[in-house]
């Protein structure tokens, strides 16, 4: 704080020269996450346990994928509002394919593989269209992707007519909810296959280690984090978001690059949709799926990205998603009603924006 009496405002420039504050400002989300983990461990019954951490991760798994894709778009200075409904659209499409192939007598493996692959491929189309409109026809990303938001919603709704798509092969669920390893005090270690337990006490004491779906997501995230931070593709993404004119002058093919970025975002949404089928053994799409993209954007911003573009990281987004997930789960374990949890998430988002606003040089990527 500046000493002078008539200086009402905080002297941020001076603050940013302090190394401790610099460190805190840059990593506030991580620090806040650790603080929350400690706080909830004391306040929430059974919060601090491997099982609950699995629950937190599984609870945000779709959001994590959506937010990772959104990170690319936001760094490039755009926004993608369509991802929540693209997820729903892919979820419905691939589950319908799995159900119908299975009903037509194809083996479970073939139905599942075809459904997943076609779902992932279908997910590339909205991204290409979004990118084409934004890059080639100069439609503002907000409008172009809002259009796709409506189209994907309408299509998904048309296909499922508001109903869950069930009667998929049960293996879908077994794969989607498998863990890498299990340890039961009674039966010892087993890999991938859940041990058969009948006593409730034994079931509760079963230790489940690393969900397969989370392992897969981590793998995808590592690849894309590498692309973003270590490759020319990543550098160009930052360059476009930082200053488009400079990027063009530097010889970057901006339209092509933007199309690729929207395809990445849409691909992540498609992956989230397929993941959802595996998790639920069902295709579901309701109008409330639309809040997913907003939480994804919130997570990206909490993770240190700026809506004006040019900064943000996959690592930061991961922290942002975990922050939202932990906050939700922790407050739920404390028994706080849902209304307050929305308020809490809102407050965190505002803090993130404030930090982005007042400490630009703190969170700026070097």
């Amino acid at each position, binding site marked *: 704080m500046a000493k002078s009496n008539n200086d009402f405002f905080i002297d941020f420039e001076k603050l940013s020269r302090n190394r401790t504050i610099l460190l805190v400002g840059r990593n506030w989300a991580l620090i806040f996450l650790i603080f929350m983990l400690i706080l909830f461990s004391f306040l929430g019954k059974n919060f601090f346990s491997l099982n609950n951490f699995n629950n937190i991760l599984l609870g945000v798994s779709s959001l994590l994928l959506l937010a990772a894709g959104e990170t690319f778009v936001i760094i490039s200075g755009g926004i993608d509002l369509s991802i929540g409904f693209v997820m729903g659209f892919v979820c419905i499409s691939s589950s319908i394919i799995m159900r119908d192939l299975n009903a037509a007598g194809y083996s479970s493996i073939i139905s599942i593989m075809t459904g997943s692959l076609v779902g992932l491929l279908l997910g590339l189309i909205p991204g290409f269209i979004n990118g084409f409109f934004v890059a080639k026809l100069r439609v503002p990303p907000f409008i172009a992707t809002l259009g796709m938001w409506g189209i994907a919603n309408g299509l998904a709704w048309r296909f499922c007519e508001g109903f869950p798509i069930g009667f998929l092969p049960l293996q879908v669920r077994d794969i989607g909810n498998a863990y890498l390893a299990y340890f039961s005090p009674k039966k010892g270690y087993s890999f991938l296959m859940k041990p058969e337990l009948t006593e409730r006490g034994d079931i509760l004491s079963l230790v489940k280690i690393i969900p397969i779906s989370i392992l897969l997501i981590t793998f995808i995230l590592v690849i894309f984090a590498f692309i973003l931070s270590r490759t020319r593709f990543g550098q160009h993404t930052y360059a476009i978001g930082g200053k488009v004119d400079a990027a063009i002058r530097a010889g970057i093919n901006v339209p092509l690059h933007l199309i690729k970025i929207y395809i990445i975002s849409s691909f992540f949404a498609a992956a989230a949709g397929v993941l959802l089928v595996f998790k*639920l053994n069902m295709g579901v799409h309701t109008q409330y799926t639309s809040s997913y993209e907003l939480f994804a954007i919130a997570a990206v911003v909490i993770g240190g990205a700026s809506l004006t573009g040019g900064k943000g990281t996959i690592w930061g987004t991961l922290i942002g998603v975990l922050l939202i997930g932990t906050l939700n*789960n922790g407050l739920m374990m404390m028994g706080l009603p849902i209304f307050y949890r929305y308020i809490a998430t809102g407050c965190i988002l505002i803090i993130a924006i404030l930090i982005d606003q007042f400490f630009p040089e703190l969170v700026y990527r070097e």
Partner: protein
Amino acid sequence: MKKFIIVLLLICLVLSFASTVCAAKLRFAFMPGIADPFYFTMEKGAKAKAEELGVELIIGEYPKAWGPEYQVPILKALAARGDIDLLFTAPTSTEALIPVLKEIHDSGIPVITVDTYLGDGDYTKPSNYNFPLAYIGTDNFLGGQVVAGQLALLLGGKGKVFLENTNPDVSSVMGRELGFRAGIKMFPDMELVGVEYCLDVQETAVAQVNAVLQKHPDLAGVFGVNVFSAQGAYQAVVTAGLEGAVKIATWDATEILIEALKRGEVDLILAQMPAEMGALCVEWGVKHLTKGAEIPKKVIPGFFVFTQENVNDPEAQKYIYK
């Protein structure tokens, strides 16, 4: 030319006479709320009853989505036929449908609301929405109580239970919640440990039930108030390996939920009786129009409870929504 006009008029006269003779057969119209198995089943029940009583039944086009913006145009077109003796419909809004149905009522077509109602559903007291002959449908509060009682029966009258709800702003599911709360209170050894709202997002329901299982490892039962919350609830319980140990109760006998019941992943399904509702509309409508019978303002057809014991009974199959 004059002759031609006279002949034409005569033909018209004969035709209109003929049509009034034909009109001795009653003609009812049914306007469903949305294209879904629940209303399809209702139509089947109404059709069967109409055939039995010799009533001609006209079915309005099924709206693709829920809401007055989809339902009202079809409803208006249906009423514009001008040859309908009675209309029974599921209004998709407690408010927006009041003027529309009032207009139809004022044009001389009596209205019965089925499954959903206008205003607060109480047509006995003075209001601007008390014109329908009756409300024929489920009492959600009563249904919630029935679920609580049946779940208590499964659990031997003791244990912790949890309620997974969907939207805190929808009257039907809130009615179920209130009924369930009241029902559980009647059992001193049962405790409702929490209520969550998943906003019809099944993934959220899974996460919420997971958290409750973590917080209360001795949880004995979950009531999921609609398909999405129930599917999320049983998905979470199955993943935890606790199917059978944590009883899942739910509402609406869709084929997916019945299948889960057969697999032992769901334990209790409260089915409304859509076919009965449709049949009651036709039956009471005929009684009213031919014998001038006074219809009770509220007719509740009751429920059917599916459990693992009776799910394969031939008698029970007709209550599955198809």
